[in-house]
């Protein structure tokens, strides 16, 4: 009773909260329910007027039809491989750089730091044309490496990891120095294990951005067998848009695994996204 008074929730306002949240949940999640319901209808059911909410019989074969048109296992594999390359590459390059900025003293540190800050402010489109020409020159168009490579040098990730390193007491480094550890050993054996939450954040944010990115895969890879999921879905539009039950089945295949992953690892996802708002 006392707790309720402190929370200050009258029964009426509690009901109002629920009503608002149910409405919000409906707005946020309802479209996905609609995607699923459409995906198990027949074509006739999708275009029936007046609109029909549920199919008479669930048409699971829509999933087989769309899978015959779009190689989803391949698309998934490609997306996962690009994500792994981007995450591992960053783990080496970005965190090493972040360690140097968090812990080591060197001439020019501030200048380089400010330069990176300025570079981060520049919108990505300005690099796109020359990067593509570079990929053509290197023969990396239509390759997965070509998709991951430009994303390895993540300045935001560097600032993020630097932040994580600086939360760890310096006494640890000093103790390790006295024991004769090299800087690399301090970084690798002492500090990296302690910034695991940071590494998780970096990995999840990298995964989300790789997963969501559309323009670069569209530009760099035109070969259907080298597409990521997002670029593959883009191909559904135009070619098959008349058959929305199939397109929606494709949509379900594309979003469901990540939704499941999100429900399982919600805490990590939410913390990572919250970190993307911490800088500034």
């Amino acid at each position: 009773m006392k707790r309720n008074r402190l929370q200050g929730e009258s029964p009426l306002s509690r009901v109002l909260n629920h009503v608002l949240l149910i409405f919000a949940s409906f707005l946020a999640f309802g479209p996905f329910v609609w995607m699923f319901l459409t995906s198990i209808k027949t074509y006739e059911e999708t275009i029936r007027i007046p609109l029909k909410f549920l199919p008479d019989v669930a048409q699971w074969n829509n999933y087989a039809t769309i899978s015959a048109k779009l190689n989803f296992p391949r698309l998934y594999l490609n997306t996962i491989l690009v994500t792994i390359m981007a995450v591992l590459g960053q783990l080496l390059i970005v965190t090493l750089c972040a360690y140097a900025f968090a812990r080591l003293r060197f001439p020019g540190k501030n200048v380089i730091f400010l330069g990176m800050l300025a570079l981060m402010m520049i919108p990505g489109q300005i690099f796109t044309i020359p990067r593509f020409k570079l990929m053509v020159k290197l023969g990396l168009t239509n390759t997965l490496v070509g998709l991951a490579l430009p994303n390895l040098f993540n300045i935001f990730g560097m600032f993020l990891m630097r932040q994580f390193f600086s939360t760890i007491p310096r006494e640890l480094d000093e103790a390790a120095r006295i024991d004769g550890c090299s800087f690399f050993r301090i970084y690798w054996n002492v500090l990296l294990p302690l910034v695991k939450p940071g590494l998780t954040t970096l990995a999840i944010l990298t995964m989300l951005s790789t997963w969501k990115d559309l323009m670069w895969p569209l530009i760099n890879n035109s070969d259907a067998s080298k597409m990521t999921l997002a670029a593959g879905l883009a191909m559904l539009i135009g070619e098959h848009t008349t058959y929305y039950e199939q397109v929606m089945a494709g949509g379900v295949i594309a979003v469901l695994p990540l939704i499941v992953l999100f429900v399982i690892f919600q805490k990590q996802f939410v913390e990572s996204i919250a970190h993307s708002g911490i800088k500034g």
Partner: protein
Amino acid sequence: MKQKSTHFNRLKRYEAGTAYLFVLPMLAGLLIFSIIPFVQNILYSFRKMGTFGEGTFVGLKNYRDLLQDETFWLALKNTFFYAIVGVPLVIILSIFFANLLNKNIRGRTIYRTLLYIPAITMPAAISILWRWILNYQYGIFNYFMEKLGLPRVSWLGDVKFVRWAIILVLVWSMVSYYTIIMLAAMQGIDRSYYEAARIDGATNRQLFFKITLPLLGPMIFFSMIMVTIGILQIFDFIYLMVDRDTLPYTYSMSLVTYFYECAFNKSSMRGYGAAISVVLAVIIMIITIIQMVVKKYWIKTEE
């Protein structure tokens, strides 16, 4: 004494050397994939360039053409429209929902999960989904419109409405993401403020406006910058929701969409596309700098 100082210097040099070695991969990558491309792109914007080759130098012609190009002005106008309408909506709604989720009510875990799902979904999937929802004849959106006694609207096919359809989907997906960020910031506020205010007899309204909102200030400000920059670069939803080579596509086009079309879909306009990306970068940097100056000023007056 002298020997000690050389030893110290050697240590310092060793530390600096190691540091350079550690930042080298990152700097090399940035040089190859960002700094050199940045310079190249600016040079390209002074050239007439096609899909292949380096083209020919044309001076400021691309920029002069931009000034005469109605599609460019339309894209610029649309982009600002998305930002001016979208930013306040995203910020206000995400604070509103985060505040609802911040209360200690039954089932909030489920509410949170459902509200967060759009944030982690890829724009490509969101686009095909909303294309279907907003379909003129069979879309469920128009179904509800009619139920409410409103006329059917060709959301993605009518030049009057297409930008609002884009705003709708843009806000829908971004609110979800920023609700997560706002809620995290709200949870960082010390509970004792609320308890103290409660004891002094403050109402819910007062708690929100006198404690939550002011303490959220810096996060709101930072989010405004991020949302603005994000919306100014809108591409996916327009590209995938509106049929290309139609009038509504032109009428909903953003700067980035126009950049993409020029640089990668038209055979001889790559230099022109480069010029568009330079203009976009200048706009974004000006806005970022204005916002940062405002922030500095704002913090000063608050002290």
